[in-house]
């Protein structure tokens, strides 16, 4: 419970209009984009919306003094419950902190506040010829604070890496309100532990990130898109595999299985041949169109040798956009196929991709539960979508078994539980199997050192 006295203190810090405490308003901060049920609602007791680091610090001093749980929140577009205030307390909404503080063109770095949307950061840099590559599917609405806290990935990871490859330095408000700065603009930096990388991906459990300095690269001059249709899923996977081994690194290589593809076809009213078992969408980039043509030619040759049914090379930006629209609409199209979709996010060594896809199909058959598979084939990150109706008798048990087996497969082939969504609430119970008991103990020790009262995003990760 947060007393009226504490509420007034919080109001004094951020202003009356930036504190929400009615029943209906608080409910809006109780969910994210995960499959965690809306009810019983995980309402915060209060929503606090600071504008500056100083306000965040003062809010944390109050929270720490009264041992109030604090869960940071950006756009609540996460998929694992990271921003859900599962123990009530305070939802610390950082979406008002939207300043791009500095654009350092010479060092090719940008410093932003957590509420800046990924797309706005991208556009801001692109206008000046610089490139911020991480592109989680949610990039049009997710915020940078969430991207860094969850270490978001995206489709370009195969060539350009994920969020943590771009985070150079952070300003973090600690649980007790102290403010520290980690890292910085120096490219070589071995001064002390690498706290920047520790806070990146810490899911709001170690501190509140209030500023981030991000590295940029030069914008690729030319891009194009290819769509490959395969009558065999194995051949599709093998094509990506062979491509990478031949030294052709695409900017993105996305794979969709038949079930995913037909879902999009229905959604977008397209007609896709039932004989097609897998579709691969590839983005290539380079210096000029000649470089692109060369890559496209090499990819086509490999695909032909692996029995591709159809190769489509976008003739212009519009066609490229049409092809990408299929991939972008995928998650929602698949989600619409069943009352409940459990979207998972396993990540495996690249060469295990075809094997894992095959084994997931087998799990699907064994339990009689449809599982659509799509993902970032170029980097080994897959999104198996378990499609179910939890209202059916026995369904929940079957689903849980199937999910357990998917995770077991991922770990068996040397992969892990999450590539880009984080652990949050939904994958907590599996973490020991991935990290080992001792591994989890180390996480807990770090947490205890930084947040002795355990107020920051409690009941997450493990």
């Amino acid at each position, binding site marked *: 419970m947060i007393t009226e006295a504490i509420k007034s203190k919080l109001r004094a810090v951020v202003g009356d209009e930036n504190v929400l405490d009615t029943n209906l308003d608080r409910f809006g901060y109780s969910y994210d984009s995960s499959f965690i049920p809306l009810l019983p609602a995980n309402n915060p007791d209060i929503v606090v919306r600071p504008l500056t680091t100083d306000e965040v610090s003062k809010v944390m001093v109050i929270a720490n003094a009264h041992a109030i749980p604090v869960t940071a929140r950006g756009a609540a577009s996460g998929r694992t419950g990271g921003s859900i205030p599962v123990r009530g307390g305070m939802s610390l909404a950082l979406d008002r902190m939207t300043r791009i503080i500095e654009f350092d063109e010479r060092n090719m770095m940008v410093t932003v506040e957590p509420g800046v949307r990924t797309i706005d950061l991208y556009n801001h840099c692109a206008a000046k010829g610089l490139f911020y590559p991480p592109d989680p599917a*949610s990039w049009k609405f997710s915020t940078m604070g969430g991207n860094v806290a969850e270490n978001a990935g995206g489709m370009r990871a195969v060539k350009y890496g994920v969020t943590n490859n771009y985070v150079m330095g952070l300003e973090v408000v600690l649980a007790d309100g102290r403010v520290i700065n980690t890292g910085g603009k120096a490219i070589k930096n071995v001064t002390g532990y690498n706290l920047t990388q520790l806070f990146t991906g810490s899911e709001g459990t170690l501190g509140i990130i209030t500023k981030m300095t991000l590295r940029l690269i030069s914008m690729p001059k030319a891009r194009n898109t290819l769509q490959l249709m395969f009558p065999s899923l194995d051949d599709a996977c093998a094509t990506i595999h062979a491509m990478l081994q031949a030294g052709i690194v695409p900017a993105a290589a996305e794979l969709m299985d038949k079930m995913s593809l037909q879902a999009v076809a229905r959604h977008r009213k397209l007609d896709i041949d039932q004989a097609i078992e897998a579709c691969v969408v590839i983005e290539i980039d380079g210096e000029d169109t000649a470089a692109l043509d060369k890559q496209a030619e090499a990819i086509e040759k490999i695909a032909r040798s692996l029995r591709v049914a159809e190769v489509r090379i976008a003739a212009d930006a519009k066609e490229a956009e049409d092809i990408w629209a299929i991939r972008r609409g995928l998650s929602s199209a698949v989600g619409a196929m069943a009352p409940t979709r459990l979207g998972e996010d396993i990540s495996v060594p690249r060469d295990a991709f075809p094997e894992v896809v095959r084994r997931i199909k087998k799990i699907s058959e064994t339990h009689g539960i449809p599982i659509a598979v799509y993902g970032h084939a170029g980097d080994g990150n897959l999104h198996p979508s378990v499609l179910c109706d939890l209202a059916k008798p026995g369904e929940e048990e079957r689903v849980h078994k199937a999910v357990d087996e998917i995770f077991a497969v991922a770990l068996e082939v040397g992969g892990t539980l999450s590539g880009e969504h984080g652990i949050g609430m939904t994958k907590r119970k599996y973490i020991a199997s991935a990290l080992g008991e001792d591994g989890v103990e180390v996480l807990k020790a770090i947490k205890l050192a930084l947040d002795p009262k355990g107020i920051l995003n409690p009941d997450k990760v493990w």
Partner: protein
Amino acid sequence: MDKDKDLLQQVKEIVSQCDRCGTCLPVCPLFGVKDIEASSARGKNNLARAMVEGGFAPDAKMLEKMNFCLLCRTCIDNCPSKVKTDEATIALRQYIADRTGGPGVKYRALGGMLKKTGLVKLSAGALGVTKKLGLGGLVPFGMAPSTLGREQYLARFAGPAALAGPSPASPAAVGADTKVAYFHGCGMRMMFPDAVAETLTILGTVTAVRQVDNVCCGLPHLAHGMRDDFLALAKENIRLFADADVIVSDCASCAGTLKHIGAYLADDPEWRDAAKAFSAKIMSLSEYLVKAGYRPRQRAGAKLTFHEPCHLGRGQGIKKEPRQLLKEAGDYVEMPGADTCCGGAGSFHIDYPEAAAAVLDKKQANIEKSGADIVVSECPVCLVQLNKAAEKSGGRFKVMHISQVL
């Protein structure tokens, strides 16, 4: 009771499609001026879902949350799952109104007034009534001086073509014996009679337009928990227009609503077929004019821009037609965010004046950025809002209905 169940089922089916991804947040005009979760489509859809699942009571507080929506459909346009937030919101308003003893005094008064054709027709009388009811904001008293009549427009912006006099009547592409009727919208009738006269003049150059003593399209009733009234009005209009082949409305909201009557009566065996046929006959003014091959009477030297009413563009998919006509009627320039809601949204601008004004401020900035002399639209509520913006801009632009410049 069954009706209640149907409404809840309808709401449930829609809102359970929401994946809570958050796509709708940055595109929602209301979230843009009041950025808390409950303003957004995701916020409302999930409040609705929690209510349907028993987490919240269907009470006045919930209704207030549902009323805070422009029904502009921008969220639906952007939603990857195309969740019909507007339909869910409308159905939930109805459900709560049924449970809490009606839509509230104000909406009931407005609905009651609009049901009575006589009151609407006697526009002076209607203005008096609305003023007494405290609905003055709906009707722009004192707005007239800032609007621009067609004669003044021609005098000011007469281009070479205008000097040559009106162009001859266009041969209608919609067959010569097509029976075309005009639908008198309440808003147009009460607030913009000059524009109605121009609409009738234009239609008269294409066809022998029939005038029908129609009743309200029912949107205000549908949107605010008076579904029975909406359905009664719909049936009356179906009956009144039985003879017409095409029914033209110069109000985007009327046309949009009338086009949906078929869907709302799809489960009524007695009315289903007639309703479907009726909806298929409806055309918005610019849609009809383009189909009929109408050419503007003059090309003026005015810089024109178009504010696309939500119920025209997203509501009916009519986007190209008004622009095509305006390109022939003057020096057309597209403004940024032309299809963003102006904040009018029926009676929203009366209920939430501050939010509506904040939404309108952005629209005003975009109109000014375009450098247009005239902002043209095809919806009376938009015209009311835009007139407020014109006044605030200190006369940097004027506002006209599309019929006045064609």
